């Protein structure tokens, strides 16, 4: 089961990277980037809310609450900016892929409990943040044409990186105590 989830998480990460930087995929425009950013944040807020309610681990709960706070904050900034810029988020395959990945993750997490839940949630958080960093570096930041949108993406990057380090730290702790 665990192996299955790990594979699913990797497949999700891979699907994001394939969607976003396939050689022949056109670079997203600002309206598409806005939709990708909002969706990416929202799926992690949703997973965090589920984990906050379900986990029995203090460390996982604190991490989940941090994800909800931070990704909600980033989303508010992103929405405020695109509203100011009069950019209407435009749905696209990357945003759809992220939404599907998020929905699949929630569906799987709902079937799990206890240590299996914690491990699946944290494993997915690691894969998700790796994928988001990759997308920021290779697609979103280079493709953003509006300077303020690009600056916001650059500012978001250290937070995503810190989340990844935190998630990896948790993953190592769960691995050490869970087996």
């Amino acid at each position: 089961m665990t192996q299955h989830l790990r594979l699913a998480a990797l497949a999700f990460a891979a699907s994001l990277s394939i969607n976003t930087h396939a050689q022949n995929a056109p670079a997203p425009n600002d309206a598409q980037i806005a939709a990708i950013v909002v969706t990416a944040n929202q799926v992690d807020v949703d997973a965090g809310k589920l984990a906050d309610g379900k986990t029995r681990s203090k460390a996982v709960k604190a991490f989940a609450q941090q994800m909800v706070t931070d990704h909600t904050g980033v989303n508010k900034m992103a929405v405020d900016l695109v509203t100011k810029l009069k950019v209407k988020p435009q749905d696209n395959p990357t945003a759809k892929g992220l939404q599907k990945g998020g929905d699949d993750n929630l569906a799987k997490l709902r079937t799990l409990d206890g240590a299996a839940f914690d491990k699946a949630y944290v494993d997915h958080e690691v894969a998700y943040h790796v994928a988001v960093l990759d997308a920021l570096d290779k697609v979103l930041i280079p493709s953003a044409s509006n300077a303020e949108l690009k600056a916001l993406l650059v500012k978001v990057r250290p937070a995503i990186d810190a989340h990844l380090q935190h998630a990896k730290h948790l993953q190592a702790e769960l691995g050490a105590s869970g087996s």
Partner: protein
Amino acid sequence: MLRQAVLAAALSAFAPAAWCETHTVVIENMRFQPAALTVKRGDRVVWVNRDVVPHTATAAPSFDSAAIAPGASWGITLKKPGRHEVVCTMHPMMKSSLVVK
């Protein structure tokens, strides 16, 4: 000469206030900058959050800013000498040190 003396007298009247400085710690890129700060007793330290996410400046049990929203700041006047480890309770990997002499 006389003018200078008057000026010096005027400045010395304000000297106690001038001795107490305000130091700024910028929170940006998920870091406290500077990561180590030494201040004098009576100085004020202000944390300015330039990140896109909320942070705290917390040195339990001495002080706790609670959440500082992006773009907001929080400050405290430090009256007792001591050494504090200042962390962000939301992002436990964010650490800094503050020495009050």
